[in-house]
């Protein structure tokens, strides 16, 4: 096929993506501060342009897109099993959790259900992804505020979680382990006892974090009352996960409307909320979420049923015609896939609803009038993964 000139130009332009300058920010009065695209506080390549009046932010706008990989388009030319390889890389700290809603959507359209053993192991790995993700948040928040110590502690203990994910799936970061109708493999020998020990380490990390950071006077001064997001604004922006619960909305997709295929109904845990809606509340809710997550894992590890780990599915997967939206409570918030199938090997359209996209779109609203250092704490406490914004 021959390409037209404009198509070639479009391709070249996409390759050289970095020429964008927001001219409207360059005003006569005030100063424009550009953070990023490569800035330590942005976990990737999120660019932030802030218009300042002295030390105060007048307007602040995040500019994503430096890492946009076009997954929605790429999904349209990949078979259903191949898609999981891609979507692993959306939120790269909780990779396994990305696969689950897509697989569940395909399972829903195909009307297959994973066997009970696979559902329980899937839920355990889902929660391990959450621990791997949020424990990095706990360390990273300290680093952003200049307290490096907790960063090292978090990285040290996060390793035990990653080791367990690696032992079970073969991949530390991108497991690609979930399959339509079950899981790729069964658990290795000795994994359950080892995972219990890893949970113990994570719980100790939580205690250390609570003592070192939450009780710290400087941390309190930097986060309490900073970046307050009321519940109705958070809902209107579609913020989800711990960010929404920190604004007092008691909603967790694991408890409320968990899609079939995950075993959250078998465990007992608590959804924590915080009424304040500030940076401190977001941190506190995430810390509790880690603790509850270790409880879920511990309970599930002791009740893994025996049986097969794969349901009977065709080797060549054709998904029947239909549409389905499945969302799960991922480490960063609600992650969902709207899958449109035309009965082919490949999905016709996949709309990826990622949590960070909505969570970060609140930044222009919440940073109005704050001081420059608070932008850092607000961004850190909102907690985003760039791959989850840019997809």
């Amino acid at each position, binding site marked *: 096929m021959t390409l037209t000139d404009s198509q070639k130009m479009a391709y070249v332009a996409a390759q050289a993506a970095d020429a964008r300058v927001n001219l409207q920010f360059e005003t006569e009065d005030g100063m424009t501060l550009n953070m990023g695209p490569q800035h330590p506080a942005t976990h990737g390549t999120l660019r932030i342009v802030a218009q300042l009046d002295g030390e105060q932010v007048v307007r602040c706008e995040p500019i994503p897109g430096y890492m946009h990989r076009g997954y929605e388009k790429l999904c349209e030319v*990949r078979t259903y099993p*191949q898609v999981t390889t891609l979507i692993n890389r959306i939120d790269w700290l909780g990779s396994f959790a990305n696969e689950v809603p897509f697989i569940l959507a395909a399972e829903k359209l195909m009307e297959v259900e994973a066997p009970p053993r696979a559902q329980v192991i899937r839920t355990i790995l889902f929660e391990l992804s959450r621990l791997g993700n949020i424990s990095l948040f706990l360390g990273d928040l300290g680093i952003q505020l200049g307290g490096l110590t907790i960063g090292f502690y978090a990285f040290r203990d996060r390793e035990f979680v990653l080791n367990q994910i690696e032992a079970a799936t073969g991949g530390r970061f991108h497991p690609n382990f979930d399959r339509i109708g079950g899981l790729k493999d069964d658990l290795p020998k000795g994994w359950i006892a080892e995972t219990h020990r890893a949970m113990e380490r994570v719980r100790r990390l939580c205690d250390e974090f609570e003592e070192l950071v939450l009780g710290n006077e400087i941390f309190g001064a930097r986060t309490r009352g900073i970046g307050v997001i009321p519940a109705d604004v958070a809902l*209107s922006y*579609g913020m989800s996960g711990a960010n929404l619960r920190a604004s007092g*909305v008691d909603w967790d997709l694991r408890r409320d*409307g968990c899609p079939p295929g995950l075993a959250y109904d078998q465990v007992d845990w608590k959804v924590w909320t915080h009424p304040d809606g500030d940076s401190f509340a977001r941190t506190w809710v995430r810390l509790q979420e880690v603790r509850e997550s270790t409880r879920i894992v511990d309970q599930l590890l002791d009740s893994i049923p025996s049986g097969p780990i794969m*349901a009977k599915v065709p080797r*060549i997967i054709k998904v029947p015609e239909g549409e389905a939206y499945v969302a799960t409570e991922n480490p960063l918030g609600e992650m*969902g896939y709207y899958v449109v199938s035309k009965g082919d090997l490949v999905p016709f359209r996949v709309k990826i609803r990622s949590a960070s996209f909505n969570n970060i779109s609140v930044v222009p609203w919440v940073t109005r009038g704050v001081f420059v250092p608070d932008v850092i704490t607000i961004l850190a406490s909102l907690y985003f993964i760039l791959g989850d914004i840019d997809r």
Partner: protein
Amino acid sequence: MSSADAGTETTEATETPEPVTDERREHLVARVTEALGDAVVASHIRPGDDVWIRVTRDAWAETAEVARHRLGFSFFDFLSAIDWLPSPFGRDMDAQEDLVDAEPSTPAEIVTGYAGGDTRFQLLARVYDVESHLGVTLKADLPDDDLTAPTWTATFLGADWHERETWEMFGITFTGHPHLVHLYLPGAFEGNPLRKDFPLLARRVKPWPGIVDVEQMPNEDDDGEGAGDESGGAA
């Protein structure tokens, strides 16, 4: 559309025997129809699971208003669009060899999904009620010669970025949007990448290595049913 009753067709999936009716979602559709009248074109309920409601384009903004303030759908989930045009580049993955040299063929007929559709582009949005834990997927057809729609930003603040993304990816303009500029793509980008007739250039310029011919297992019929171990092509 003559009247609300005539215009509303409710299709129910009858494959699953257990919940054949879903009173909560039927009630919801009834309330939306009551509030919007003729603007509700069609609806589809999958009992116990989900509901789709298609409205006219003119009532798109009003639908958001009604959903948020009268029906309690306070959580904005996402807003996007679907291009229902079958890909003119064929179904790459169905072929056993890559279609690098394939010329764009004449598009086949457009077949739309739940709650139907008459045109190529369809808006797709989802709102959720965090109290009752009900979600609803909203759709609206856009006429081919006028790809504009009223903005949702007055109702849902989060629609801002979603509409910017939809604008650049599908070329759908949202009237009344305060700041409709590129979000992901560079400013000079031409074309709307998520349209079906926009070629995926990476696939066109280089053979795709991912096409794997799935060999038959021994003792297996031709229909591809087998022991459910490795599923389909490895990436």
